[in-house]
């Protein structure tokens, strides 16, 4: 693929980047009304990018089976549209955020050094672009840059969007741990490069297959070389930071609590999606179904540890934001189940329940929508002028704000995986794929965790509906955010009743059928080459 051909597949990302820089510039306009238009400009940019991504689906140049190693076009499109769709809802949630932290909007005059509205939306778009670029990566360096493009803007978004001092504190924590994680997975990438001598995915994938194949000739259990394995393990550990999974989950509660609520919703979706997309791409280099027992065991242990840690810690919290933070950890654990199960049968006709990666993609979108609803409701409530955060702030919400309480209940039940809401379909999909991969123990752990999780989600529903109202809490006047909250609940209900199209799309996106003619033939030649000296 030439440079130009590659660029031609990236127009949505390019449009978003251009919008991001445009927004940063326009955000510095002296006229207040022009500055205020940046949120709508960002939305416009995302809509156009989404339109181009949809147009790609219908263009004849992009046959759906155009699958270079690990990152097919269908996969890329699904991630793009998923991120843009949920991103648009996130943008609605965050649109009024600069008003809250007072982004230099005083009427007394224009002071460029105090104006930050443009930066906020610019960073917002950059981070989303990064998540989309992860799916398009065909090179380790690209992947690293895309991941960092996702994360770097979020550090700033956390630190600057709240007037309380907890926000910079959270931002600094997030930044240092993030930098540490980036170093870990960069080291992992370096080791992968050392083991394979390449950064391009096609070459790495060939080398990996060669290792697995060569080992089978010498009758040893198929396994990657030590260096490649260590590289992958470190890379996975680094990515665990992005998805807030064990052992890199420790930042989650503090950062989520410290950030402004719309930013928290953003953190729970965009970096997590980027992380899971990266994991799928990276493990795809080894090939599906995953041949390495070490990696499967590692992923399984991570899944179980993440679920248990997230759910038990969430159980102990009194602050709803912290509960949702730990529940975000737990949801990463559920999705790791799907990743551990992987694709049981690599086949163009693979049934959804045999495709754990499709389950992960489906669950990412589902989680993005339902989680956003819960955070949007929190972001709409003010307790004595401050953001509503504790269970007490939600008391008797149904008596004061029946619509918001219903949104909260729908989203909480969905997060709990209660049937027939979309979280339940996500769990059917994830657990079904694990059963197909004959990993019943993972399902049993998942089921136990669902039961634990039900306790704290039910507590959220309970305080909203069963307690007497708290007089201090009132609803902030945020019409756009209200629309986002209601829209996410409506979307949850609609997707629950009509989950089929999304499931089909996710399954199709994550088939990863290997290119039957060209690559395998090439590989066979090399295998025979390698095996000959061994035989002698």
């Amino acid at each position, binding site marked *: 693929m030439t440079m130009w051909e590659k660029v031609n597949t990236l127009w949505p990302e390019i449009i978003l980047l251009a919008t991001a820089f445009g927004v940063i510039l326009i955000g510095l306009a002296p006229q207040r009304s022009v500055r205020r238009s940046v949120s709508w400009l960002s939305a416009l940019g995302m809509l156009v990018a989404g339109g181009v991504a949809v147009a790609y689906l219908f263009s004849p140049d992009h046959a759906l089976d155009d699958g270079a190693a690990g990152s097919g076009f269908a996969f890329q499109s699904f991630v793009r549209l998923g991120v843009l769709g949920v991103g648009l809802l996130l943008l609605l949630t965050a649109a009024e955020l600069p008003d809250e932290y007072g982004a230099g909007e005083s009427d007394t005059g224009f002071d460029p050094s105090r104006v930050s509205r443009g930066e906020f939306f610019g960073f917002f778009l950059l981070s989303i672009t990064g998540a989309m670029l992860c799916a398009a990566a065909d090179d380790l360096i690209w992947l690293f840059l895309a991941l960092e493009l996702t994360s770097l803007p979020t550090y700033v978004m956390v630190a600057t969007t709240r007037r309380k001092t907890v926000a910079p504190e959270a931002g600094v924590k997030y930044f240092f741990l993030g930098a540490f994680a980036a170093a870990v997975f960069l080291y992992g990438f370096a080791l992968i490069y050392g083991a394979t001598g390449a950064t391009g995915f096609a070459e790495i994938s060939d080398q990996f297959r060669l290792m697995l194949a060569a080992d089978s000739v010498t009758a040893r259990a198929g396994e990657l070389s030590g260096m490649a394995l260590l590289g992958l393990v470190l890379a996975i550990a680094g990515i665990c930071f992005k998805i807030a999974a064990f052992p890199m989950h420790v930042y989650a509660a503090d950062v989520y609590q410290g950030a402004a609520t719309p930013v928290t919703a953003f953190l729970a979706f965009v970096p997590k999606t980027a992380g899971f997309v990266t994991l799928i791409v990276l493990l795809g280099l080894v090939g599906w179904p995953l041949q390495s027992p070490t990696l499967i065991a590692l992923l399984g242990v991570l899944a179980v540890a993440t679920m248990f840690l997230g759910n038990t810690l969430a159980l102990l919290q009194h602050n709803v934001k912290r509960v949702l933070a730990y529940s975000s950890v737990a949801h990463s654990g559920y999705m790791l189940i799907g990743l551990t199960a992987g694709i049981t*049968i690599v086949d163009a006709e*693979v*049934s*959804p*329940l*045999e495709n754990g990666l499709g389950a992960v993609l489906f669950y990412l979108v589902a989680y993005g929508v339902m989680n956003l609803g819960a955070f949007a409701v929190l972001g709409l409530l003010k307790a004595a002028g401050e953001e509503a955060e504790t269970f007490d702030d939600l008391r008797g919400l149904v008596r004061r704000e029946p619509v918001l309480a219903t949104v909260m209940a729908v989203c909480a*039940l969905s997060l709990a995986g*209660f*049937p*027939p809401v979309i979280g*339940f*379909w996500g769990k*059917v*999909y994830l*657990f*079904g794929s694990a*059963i*197909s991969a004959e990993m*019943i123990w993972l*399902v*049993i752990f998942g*089921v*136990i965790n*669902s*039961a634990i999780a*039900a*306790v704290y989600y*039910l*507590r959220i*529903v*309970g305080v909203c*509906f*069963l307690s007497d109202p708290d007089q201090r809490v009132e609803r902030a006047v945020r019409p756009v955010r209200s629309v986002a909250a209601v829209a996410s609940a409506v979307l949850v209900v609609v997707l629950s009743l009509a*989950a*089929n199209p999304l*499931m*089909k799309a996710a*399954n199709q996106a994550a088939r990863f059928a290997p290119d039957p003619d060209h690559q395998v033939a090439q590989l066979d030649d090399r295998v025979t080459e390698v095996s000959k000296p061994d035989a002698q």
Partner: protein
Amino acid sequence: MNEIFLLPMLVLIPLVCGLAMAWLPPRRDELVRYTAFGVTLGVFVLSLAAAMSFDWSDPHGKMQMIYRAPWIDSLGIGFHLGVDAISLSLVLLTTFLMPITVLGSFGDVKQRSKEFYLWLLVLQAAMTGVFLAQDLILFYICFELTLVPLYFLIGIWGSSQRLWAAKKFFIYTLSGSLFTFAGVLYVAWYHASRDDGAWTFDIAALTATALQMPSGMQAFVLAALMAGFAIKVPLFPVHTWLPLAHTEAPTSGSVLLAGVLLKLGTYGLLRFAIPMAPEAVVQYAPCIAGVATLGILYAALVCWVQDDIKKLVAYSSVSHLGFCVLGMFALNPQGVGGSVMYMINHGISTGALFLCVGMIYRRYHTREMDRLSGLGKRLPIWSTFMVIFCLASVGLPGLNGFVGEFLTLLGAYTSDVLGVGFAAVAALGLILAAIYILYMVGRVIFGPLREPAAYAGQVKDLDAREIAVLTPLAIACLVLGLFPTPLLRSMEPEIANLTGAANRIVAEQSNRPSPFGAGDPAPQVLRHSRAGGNPGRESVDLRSTAKPCVSVHSTRIDVEVAP
């Protein structure tokens, strides 16, 4: 009207009307009440229409009035409804109890009445859905969905400990049924792995495949299904959520909880556990029946020492449902038939008892037997009804409770897997039941008149509405007690279908002393057609593979012969 839409309407009308009630004008309690009453009455009429067009004398016990709509094709999940005589009678029980419950709740709900009736209607939709579902995931959805309305009904309109009761009820039952969910997925996977990866959750197809599972896996599936259903029943020792939930719930909640919701557990055992894991069921039937018998005695003894009438009735449910499970795991037509009759009769008589207790509580604001005595003098009409329902509950011949009790005990006695010991011990429970119920009747209704001082002399007997609530229940008690045979007869083929596989294994065991499972002639493995139907379909009678000594009526399953 086309009868094909009857079943989906039974589910969707309460659901849609219930949710639509949120938009009724606020503070119009009368309007809300009568709307709810009208809807439930209308649904009852619809269910009668369904009963009319149902062929009660179908000798094969097949599902009728099947309705299929595509839902989530990619997972093989469909909106697939159907009824046989067992599920239709339970649906009728539900639709019959609903308007009575709504009418009975008229004076009780003082606040947030819109929400109250909204949740009642949603609950009705979920309960009906459980009995009608022919898709395992749809069944599971409805099964779980009953929790949400009840959580709110208990948590908002319950008594003093309502929050704790609601939470305990929800988490307890959800934790169990999540394991059921894992079992369901496993069964579906087993089917898919025998069918070229074509996933389906169609109950008939899954049942046909599941009974070929090796006995170890059947034990796993049985354990998973039991985890959810045993808690729902509730079987001793996992019954501890029930007394609390029953006591704290508002009267309507208790009525539906006892009347219908407990049957979801026994219905699940009958519909899924017994046909899907027959080997394990035969193997573990004595254990399960033993636990059930223990539960009968334990709960009966607990009833004896209760001072709160509502708690007494609640614990008596645990004891009664023990009979239900005992009869079911006798695995013979008498036992299972009695068990199904027990489900229906218990629903009517215990529901009625809860209504009666609720009426007393509304008058005296207490349910303590110490403070109430000799009410026969003060409330003669109420006392008449109370005595009828108590006798029905004890199992006086001629009233409905007797049929189920007699048949379950007979079933246990004649069963090949249980035996006379179980029947004898369980019969002891019957005697205890007579003691605790009659003891309660004796104290509350007869004896010297004693009322709480604050209400002495001011209390009036039942008004017309309350009589209208109780009369249909009393009539049902009498009718089902005197004429149980038509219903029993029409359920026989279904029962034979459901227990056929288990009976075959029992027969094999008694013929061959070798440990079963080894070289078991599993019916010729056939590829089962997916829910779409297939031109190459034909009906194969699995009876031909069974030993001739069993009286399995007809175990017909639609299978596709492999080309």
